[in-house]
């Protein structure tokens, strides 16, 4: 049970950190794109296309970058939790950005124009628009977390599934199944499912708040 708890906690910390990092730049990027229609016209379809990018592809690219002979090899990050955090943050950036863009864009059309017409400076308008879109932006973040928590490719390729160090729920499930040890895989699978269900409920709750 101790090992399961450790794996669950590590998964939450790694995916949580990745989500936090990705949220910071993704929400800022989404807002900038809302305010720059010229940039958003080509970039948003591109980001939306990248939402479904295979996790193994990100894993492979990051592996090439972080491996000893790679351009970032000197950082010695390969097979570390930090590498998984970076990979997952990259993986969920298009998802959070494109969902936050839709939410902020809708909100800007309503509240941005309103606050500007009332004499708001750009910064004041941004504050109001983001505050009015909080449930929607939070939903984008929760979706990102859900994707990070459930991905396997990045965690396996740049994390290495090292016991007590980089093993997370998805890599542990894959390993246990390959060994024919279904008991641990099943318990982890159930925990993962429960977590994703909780995330889904949170999304529904946030959706209701938006209404």
């Amino acid at each position, binding site marked *: 049970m101790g090992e399961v708890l450790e794996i669950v906690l590590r998964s939450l910390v790694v995916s949580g950190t990745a989500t936090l990092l990705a949220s910071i730049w993704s929400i800022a990027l989404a807002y900038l794109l809302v305010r720059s*229609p010229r940039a958003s016209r080509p970039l948003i379809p591109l980001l939306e296309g990248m939402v479904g990018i295979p996790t193994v592809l990100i894993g492979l690219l990051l592996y090439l970058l972080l491996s000893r002979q790679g351009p970032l090899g000197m950082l010695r990050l390969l097979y570390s939790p930090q590498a998984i955090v970076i990979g997952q943050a990259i993986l969920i950036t298009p998802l959070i950005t494109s969902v936050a863009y839709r939410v902020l864009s809708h909100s800007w059309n*309503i*509240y941005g*124009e*309103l*606050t*500007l*017409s*009332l*004499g*708001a*400076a*750009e910064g*004041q308008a941004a504050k*109001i628009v983001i*505050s*009015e879109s909080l449930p929607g932006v939070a939903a984008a973040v929760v979706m990102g977390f859900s994707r990070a928590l459930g991905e396997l490719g990045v965690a396996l390729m740049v994390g290495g599934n090292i016991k007590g160090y980089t093993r997370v729920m998805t890599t542990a499930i894959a390993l246990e199944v390959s060994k024919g040890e279904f008991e641990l895989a099943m318990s982890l699978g159930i925990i993962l499912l429960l977590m994703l269900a909780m995330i889904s409920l949170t999304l529904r709750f946030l959706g209701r708040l938006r209404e």
Partner: protein
Amino acid sequence: MNGIELREVWFRYPGSREWTLRGVSLEIRRGEVLALVGPNGSGKTTILKLAGGLYRPSRGKVKFWRSNIWEVNGSRRLELRRMVVYVHERPILLRGTALDNIAFAPLLRGMPREEAVRRAEELLSDTESAYLSRKDRREMSAGEAQVVSILRAVAASPRILLLDEPTAHLDREKRGVMTGLIGKLRSEGMGIAIATHDHLLALRTADRVAVVENGVIGSIGRPSEVLDFFKIY
């Protein structure tokens, strides 16, 4: 020019091939009420949004007190924009009560909170709407929300007020109150432009009426001079 001037303004929405406005020239002066009348889709709202500095003209100039709003630097533009407030046809309220919403506009311009709240309370009371003060936006009817959004704009103390269909959701009693408020603001020196289908409001309050048709100003003059329009519609 003590107010806003649109000079030979052409405008089309991004992605559209059709011109929404074609060479509109118009002045909105302090101390007078200008009513924009015309059928749906004629360009009345677009004119108001251009006059509010919310849309950039595709061609032509929009001048606020002789300064082209789109040629001045950011801080000057903000200073000029703060002289004008546009009120949407569909009332948009921020989170909170009527009082929070009305106090928001002066707060945005740096007024101390106590003073802003006092101003909001005064406006609600002057328009027989004090009962709304603690009402949350989710509990308000469309008419109540419209009253609050107009009062919020007034609380910002603009020199020019742009009202888009200000009586669209109001009952007869509230229309009377709003007509009175418009007259009072004009007498205090505020310039007001109203886009409206409410011909009674236009006839009662306007010093000048501009008839907008297919993106051009068909005619402009005193209400009595454009009476033909009111007969047709």
